[in-house]
């Protein structure tokens, strides 16, 4: 691979006191590719995101942005370096209008000194046109973003990251709380972001969603990297099997089959 990765983790570890949250994890994110991070609850996915997003610092290993060794001090620094993170639950401020949310933290201004003010006209128009470009048609950019559906909110957050020139996009379980149709819509925007040339890190525990869009797959299990695949080297069935625990699942099935059936007490009082 001659191409320099947008974001690369090598052997990264993170400890909270004596608890190992993450150990020896490596992954690479390339422009125009989607890297999926799969794992069950408590596998260390959140910790991984927080390191990439600048909320936490890694304890060992190396974290490279554009091939340069880095230690991010804050989410602001991550944003400035071109890494945008879209969180599942805290992507937006629900009571604020869509256009204020879209530009939150990076508001364009007019004028100087004490007369520096928001460029409201530009903010509204840009929000509208950028969302339309991603295929989201809002009737009113003034409505509180909390009145949008979960999928729409994710899409606004993704459109925002694309607009602000993010090179790498980290998505935390974007489809976790969504229905089948909504998930499809969100995955479409994830693909749109990829096609726009962004490197995407998609965190999910759904191998089906991951396999639909992913180019690389990293499996986390209890804080360590259990497997790493490219799209060519793995099938959906294999991914699902490993994700679900692989051989552990076979053991479980075995155990469940052999488990002695507890005697079911007869209850004559109930017909069903």
């Amino acid at each position: 691979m001659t191409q320099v990765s947008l974001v690369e983790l090598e052997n990264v570890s993170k400890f909270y006191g004596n608890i190992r949250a993450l150990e020896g994890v490596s992954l690479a994110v390339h422009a125009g590719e989607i890297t999926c991070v799969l794992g069950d609850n408590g596998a260390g996915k959140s910790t991984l995101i927080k390191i990439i997003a600048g909320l936490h610092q890694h304890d060992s290993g190396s974290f490279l942005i554009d091939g340069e060794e880095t230690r991010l001090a804050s989410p602001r620094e991550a944003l400035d370096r071109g890494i945008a993170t879209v969180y599942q639950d805290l992507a937006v401020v629900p009571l604020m209008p869509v256009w204020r949310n879209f530009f939150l933290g990076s508001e364009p201004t007019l004028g100087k000194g004490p007369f520096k003010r928001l460029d409201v006209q530009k903010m509204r128009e840009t929000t509208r046109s950028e969302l339309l470009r991603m295929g989201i048609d809002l009737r009113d950019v003034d409505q509180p973003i909390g009145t949008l559906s979960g999928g729409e909110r994710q899409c606004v957050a993704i459109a925002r990251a694309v607009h602000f020139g993010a090179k790498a996009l980290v998505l935390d379980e974007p489809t976790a709380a969504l229905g089948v149709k909504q998930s499809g819509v969100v995955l479409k925007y994830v693909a749109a972001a990829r096609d726009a040339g962004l490197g995407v890190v998609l965190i999910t525990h759904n191998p089906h969603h991951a396999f639909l869009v992913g180019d690389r797959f990293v499996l986390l299990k209890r804080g360590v990297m259990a497997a790493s695949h490219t799209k060519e080297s793995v099938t959906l069935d294999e991914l699902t099997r490993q994700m679900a625990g692989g051989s552990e699942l076979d053991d479980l099935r075995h155990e469940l089959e052999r488990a002695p059936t507890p005697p079911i007490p007869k209850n004559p009082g109930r017909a069903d």
Partner: protein
Amino acid sequence: MSASAPPAPTQEPGAADERLLHTSALRRLMGRPELGSVVGAVAVFLFFSLVADSFLQASSLSTVLYASSTIGIMAVPVALLMIGGEFDLSAGVLVTSSALISSMFSYQMTANVWVGVFVSLLVTLAVGVFNGVMLTRTKLPSFIITLGTFLMLTGLNLGFTKLISGTVSTKSIADMEGFESAKALFAHEFVLGDVTIKVTILWWIALVAIATWVLLRTRFGNWIYAVGGGAHAARAVGVPVTRTKIGLYMGVAFAAWVSGQHLLFSFDVVQSGEGVGNELIYIIAAVIGGCLITGGYGSAIGSAVGAFIFGMTSKGIVYAEWDPDWFKFFLGAMLLLATLLNAWVRKRAEATR
């Protein structure tokens, strides 16, 4: 249009406008946070116009406006702070502290009163910074932090005043250098037509105007709504949450300084026990004005309307020649009604949009 974007849902041009027609002017008005309080203010105004004969006189109006302005000056930054998701229980006594510092510094140093006024500004802002830094560093609820500041300031006000003056009030500084010019800024009054206008009313209007502009048209305003409505989301997109909150506490401190100097220069002396309980009145004005107690929603104009309701009620009871003991009951009832009305209006406005 980017070729890479997924196809937009098919729609005829102008369809968006058609849907927008449903958001009528009335609906937009319903969505404003201060609507409930305006309805309340009109109701209170009509009520006292009917029951108190002298309520509609010009002189009464100026009295009501003055009473409203002394609350309103503080209600503005308290409302901003509440939109930012925090409380300041020390706001009431901080006004007294500010007046005491100004008065005692000038008197003890036999300096020009402007020196005391300036020192007071610095110390008051420092208390604001202390509140803000303690809050953001410890991550304790602002209720606890500012309750602590409230108690400490109450004690310091009484303790220092007794230690320095020997009594619970300060010495008069009316004959000191600079008193007249400072009074012109903080406690001036002039006659407009047949209404006496106190300068606090101008301070109040100016603060409401500036706060409204800041809230709706500046980056800082955007951040205030964001830190109150979702501090984690705000931090994640790069909003300086800590700085915003400290700035809000400094805003409260600045208004406390203005109020404190008004107190000092209208009466020459300051009673060290004053101000206790006022912090709740500022909060009530902000809540009646449509601020959501959990943060993220509200307006500066609403706080002004809330303060005006407060002024009308407190003076209206006097003009109606009722026992002022009833005042607190009215205030409590008003608070409940306003909060219920606000909740109802907001629910309707958001549900039908």
